[in-house]
């Protein structure tokens, strides 16, 4: 409680020191606790009794001491306060006394002031009285003086203008003239002004002419000192702007000026375009340099031109004019660039990709930047179109190279087959070589073109570029186009007359089949991945589907195989036909042996069989002959053996001409045999196709001849020989049976003395051979 009270006392003190009494606030703020010694409701009796009742003696003693101290303190405080108040009262009394004496002196000075003011007003009235008459005169004189100044200025104006003009201070000259002209034109009818005005007009006309001249010279007037930075005779656009500004102030119309501005800028543009055009026609400079030149000179200047023009001529009409001009320049420029790029794309060899890509990239970036300056005209779209064209052209060039490669590969294969005999080359190896070569060529082509899609290339991610280049140019025109071309090119060989070597047809047939199975899908997927062809319906609409290509390859393979059958069958058939034609079947000796040509046919057939089986498997995909099953269990070595002359086989077929009856029966009871159906992709089907073709031809040739007895018997022997050796090559024995029977029957029919040979003799002769 002790510090509490002392702080309260100090507060009380400060309150009194301020000399303000707030008794109300004090009485309200006091507590009513009777035991609070500082409170308003302090009751000493209560406090004392309370103390006496509650406190022990020692604390009472202490309390008493404390109270005595406090009372003493309070007394001294009170004394101090009283003294303070007293001294303040004394000083206030002093102050009042001093003020009283000061007021006396001030009154005296005020009286003096009033006197002076009245004297001044007296004098002013006097002056007004004196001066009043001459004020109008003074005013007039001042006006005359000013007018004379102005006239002097006008009279000096021609000289001044000349001076300014000579100094090249055109701006000041024009400003001066403009100011003077207002007056001169107003008083133009006064004779004294007329010559001045005429002089000035002449000078200004001269000035104007001078400005126009400089303007037309390209702003690089010799007398102009400003903008020293413009180098090498290039038109300084800023100077031009200044000139245009001056001329505009001289009252030239904006349309004239803007037209003149463009006209003035045009020759230089045309010269730059001409330079570029000249370069575009040749591959002498590299394409990057070409782009740099175009960008640094033409495009930069065009940019400056556009910027300056825009500043000087802000009106919409001028803007339209600028756009038209800009459009025409850009059109020429884009055409030139496109021409150069396409030339580069076409002519540069395999290494040109990166250079072209970099050139395209640089070009595209520059024009994109320019597009930001000139938003109209779809500049960046058109630049992209140029790039697209170049890229597509490149893809086309690559495609052309691939086509050449294919042609070379095919003719190489052809000559390889022609020089090395049929037996000495491994057909599967040749085919694998061809497959690898062409697939690698396609892959290399695709890889080369990927340079266009590098991530640092500015246009590589543009959707328009993707669509045009990736989907259309590469995926469709290059890849699908080439694949289709390859298939049709192979198939075209099948239709050639005279037919190409049969082995080539066989090889290519298998090649088409293998390509379809192994590489077609792979290449298409590869391209899809490498060139990020989207799986959207739009993209799919543009691209030939793989299934369609696959069908083309299947068709080509089938066509080639059929052509092979026709060609090799035709070779055998030709041999048989010539031998039948050449022989005199009417006169002749009894047959002793099988004719050499028949043996030769069987030998050749073995060769054909070997070639075919090196490329095609035994079992065709379904639809093989009925006899295919048991033969496939034979080892290939047994194929060289002749038919075992078991009783069963003999009973099955005899070399006796059964006359027409047998074949009629055959026809009656068997379905119409499709003698010359299409060959399937299998050894048996192919070879039996060849056999059937040869036998059918033999049949037709026999029908054109007339036979004697021994002629018929010779046919008997030949047929038996064929029967003994052909079975192993065919998928369906019954067709061979039927054809051999027909041959025999026809020979018998065409025989004037049909006496057939004993079966045992026939067998003997065949056995001996």
């Amino acid at each position: 409680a002790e510090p509490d009270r002392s702080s309260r006392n100090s507060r009380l003190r400060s309150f009194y020191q301020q000399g303000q009494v707030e008794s109300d606030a004090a009485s309200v703020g006091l507590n009513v606790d009777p035991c609070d010694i500082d409170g308003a409701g302090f009751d000493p009796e209560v406090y004392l009794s309370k103390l006496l009742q509650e406190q022990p003696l020692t604390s009472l003693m202490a309390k008493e001491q404390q109270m005595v101290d406090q009372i003493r303190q309070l007394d001294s405080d009170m004394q101090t306060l009283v003294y303070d108040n007293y001294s303040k009262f004394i000083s206030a009394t002093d102050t009042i006394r001093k003020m009283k004496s000061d007021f006396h002196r001030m009154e005296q000075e005020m009286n003096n002031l009033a006197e002076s003011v009245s004297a001044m007003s007296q004098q002013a009235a006097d002056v007004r009285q004196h001066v009043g008459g001459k004020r109008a005169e003074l005013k007039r004189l001042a006006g005359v003086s000013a007018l004379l100044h102005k006239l002097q200025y006008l009279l000096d104006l021609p000289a001044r203008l000349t001076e300014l003009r000579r100094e090249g201070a055109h701006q000041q000259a024009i400003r001066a003239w403009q100011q003077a002209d207002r007056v001169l034109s107003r008083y133009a009818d006064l004779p004294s002004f007329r010559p001045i005005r005429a002089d000035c007009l002449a000078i200004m006309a001269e000035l104007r002419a001078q400005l126009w001249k400089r303007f037309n010279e390209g702003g690089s007037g010799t007398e102009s000192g400003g903008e020293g930075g413009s180098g090498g005779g290039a038109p300084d656009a800023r100077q031009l702007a200044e000139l245009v500004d001056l001329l505009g102030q001289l009252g030239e119309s904006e349309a004239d000026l803007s037209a003149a501005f463009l006209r003035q800028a045009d020759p230089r543009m045309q010269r730059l375009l001409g330079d570029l055009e000249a370069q575009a026609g040749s591959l002498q400079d590299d394409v990057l340099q070409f782009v740099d030149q175009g960008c640094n000179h033409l495009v930069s200047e065009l940019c400056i031109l556009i910027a300056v023009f825009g500043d000087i001529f802000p009106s919409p009409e001028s803007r339209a004019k600028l756009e038209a001009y800009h459009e025409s320049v850009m059109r020429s420029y884009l055409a030139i660039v496109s021409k150069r790029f396409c030339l580069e794309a076409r002519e540069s060899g395999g290494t040109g990709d990166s250079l072209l890509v970099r050139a395209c990239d640089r070009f595209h970036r520059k024009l994109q930047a320019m597009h930001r300056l000139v938003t109209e005209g779809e500049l960046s779209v058109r630049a992209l179109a140029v790039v697209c064209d170049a890229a597509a052209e490149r893809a086309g060039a690559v495609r052309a190279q691939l086509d050449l490669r294919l042609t070379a590969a095919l003719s190489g294969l052809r000559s390889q087959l022609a020089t090395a005999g049929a037996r000495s080359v491994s057909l599967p190896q040749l085919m694998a070589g061809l497959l690898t070569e062409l697939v690698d060529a396609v892959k290399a082509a695709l890889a080369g073109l990927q340079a266009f899609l590098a991530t640092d290339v500015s246009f590589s991610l543009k959707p328009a570029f993707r669509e045009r280049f990736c989907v259309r140019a590469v995926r469709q025109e290059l890849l699908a186009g080439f694949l289709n071309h390859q298939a049709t090119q192979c198939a075209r060989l099948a239709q050639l007359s005279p037919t190409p070597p049969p082995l080539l047809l066989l090889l290519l047939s298998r090649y088409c089949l293998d390509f379809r199975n192994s590489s077609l899908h792979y290449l298409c997927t590869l391209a899809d991945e490498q060139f990020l062809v989207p799986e959207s319906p739009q993209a799919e609409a543009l691209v030939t589907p793989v299934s369609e290509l696959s069908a083309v390859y299947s068709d080509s393979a089938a066509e080639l195989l059929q052509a092979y059958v026709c060609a090799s069958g035709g070779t055998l058939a030709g041999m048989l036909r010539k031998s039948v034609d050449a022989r005199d079947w009417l006169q002749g000796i009894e047959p002793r042996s099988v004719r050499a040509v028949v043996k030769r046919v069987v030998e050749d057939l073995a060769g054909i069989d070997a070639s075919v089986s090196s490329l095609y498997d035994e079992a065709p995909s379904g639809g093989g002959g009925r006899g295919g099953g048991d033969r496939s269990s034979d080892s290939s070595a047994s194929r060289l053996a002749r038919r075992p002359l078991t009783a069963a086989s003999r009973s099955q077929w005899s070399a006796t001409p059964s006359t027409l009856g047998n074949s009629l029966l055959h026809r009656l009871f068997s379905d119409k045999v499709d003698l010359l159906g299409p060959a399937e992709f299998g050894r048996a089907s192919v070879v039996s196709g060849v056999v059937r073709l040869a036998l059918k031809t033999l049949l037709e040739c026999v029908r054109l001849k007339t036979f004697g007895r021994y002629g018929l018997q010779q046919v008997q022997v030949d047929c038996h020989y064929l029967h003994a050796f052909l079975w192993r090559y065919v998928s369906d024995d019954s067709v061979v049976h039927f054809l051999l029977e027909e041959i025999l029957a026809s020979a018998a029919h065409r025989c004037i003395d049909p006496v057939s040979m004993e079966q045992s003799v026939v067998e003997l002769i065949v056995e001996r051979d």
Partner: protein
Amino acid sequence: SIIKSEIKMDIDDPPVIYGLETQARALCSVPALDDSQQFIIGTQGLRVEHNQLHLLTFDADSNSVSKRIFDHGRDEIWSVSVAPHNPNLCATVFNRVTMDSGTNPSVAKRWCLWKLPEEEDNQTPRHRNSSEDALTSSSLSSVESLQSIGSIELEQQGEPRCLAFHPERAEAVLVSDGGLYQLGLGSGAVRLLAHLPAKDGRSQLRYWHAAWNPHHSAQQVIAACDSGGLRGFDVRCPPSDGPVVVIDNAHNGQARCVDYNPNKQYYLASSGDDGAIRFWDTRQPSNPVKMLRLHKHWACCVQFNPYHDQLVLSGGTDAKVYLTNNRSISSEPVLSLDDDLDDDDDDDDRRQQQPELDEDRTVSVVEEHEDSVYAAVWCATDPWLFASLSYDGRLVISHVPKSEKYRILL
């Protein structure tokens, strides 16, 4: 000979089948003066006593065939042709077997011109065959005899193949191993006008078939060679001038038949052992205008329809006869512009519905044959009728399908 005539019923156009007992190769259409639809066929029987020529008249109303038979003796007939300007004048190429002293038989190919006797009126009804009296009528038929006009021996003749009558004049060309012999047939006698030897430089050629060019008053004749080439000659030039048209390697193998487009100059068709039909423009002989690969073996004959040259008939040793429409290379206009302008929408619609409508296509295939077809000809008087003959002696007279007919006519 037993002759049976049967009618095979079909929904559209039932083909009429006429059977011979012996084999046959020779077939020709007869340009009858009364516009009746006639064909003539010859039998090829080596050991037969009586080979015959059958002159068949097709009756469209009853869909049946009536016949006249002419005796050709023991000589088997390889080829028959009838003069376009005279339906009674016919020529055959035949094989004559002579047995000298029984042991050493010899066979020789010969040719002869014949005059078919005029038909007697009262014979016609007796010979009319329909399916009902096929068997009975055969016994009733009488065999008429041919009147030989003559033949001449020609130098280096070799084996004759066939005789091609000139389309307008009384002339013919005999095709033989020795070359082409231009014969004059006027004033009742045969005489040799010119001989075009079958030589190609030094190598010997063998001609198989020949056809006159019907344009420019028919001064050119073209022959099919066994080397696969075609050789065209102008009969106004001396033979030493050599061919005016040379198409080498027209076919891989032998060229079997050749025919000029009757309505489009310079265009011709050829068929051969490679089974292909090729169409040529004689002004550009290096490449065919078009190729058809329909036959699976030899294509033995090919002929343009004499009226609507887009229709082409071909027969082959695969026992098939193909009727194709080759509109794209025919004399028919491609598609009249008027149509397009008049009803654009209708036309487009129609084309979308039937996109194959104006494309070249195979119109029909005669499946009735079971043996090689060596001859197929158009009827000379009816553009919608054709006949084909297979080796087993079966003649099939077929119609152009009605749908195709209307498509061409309308």
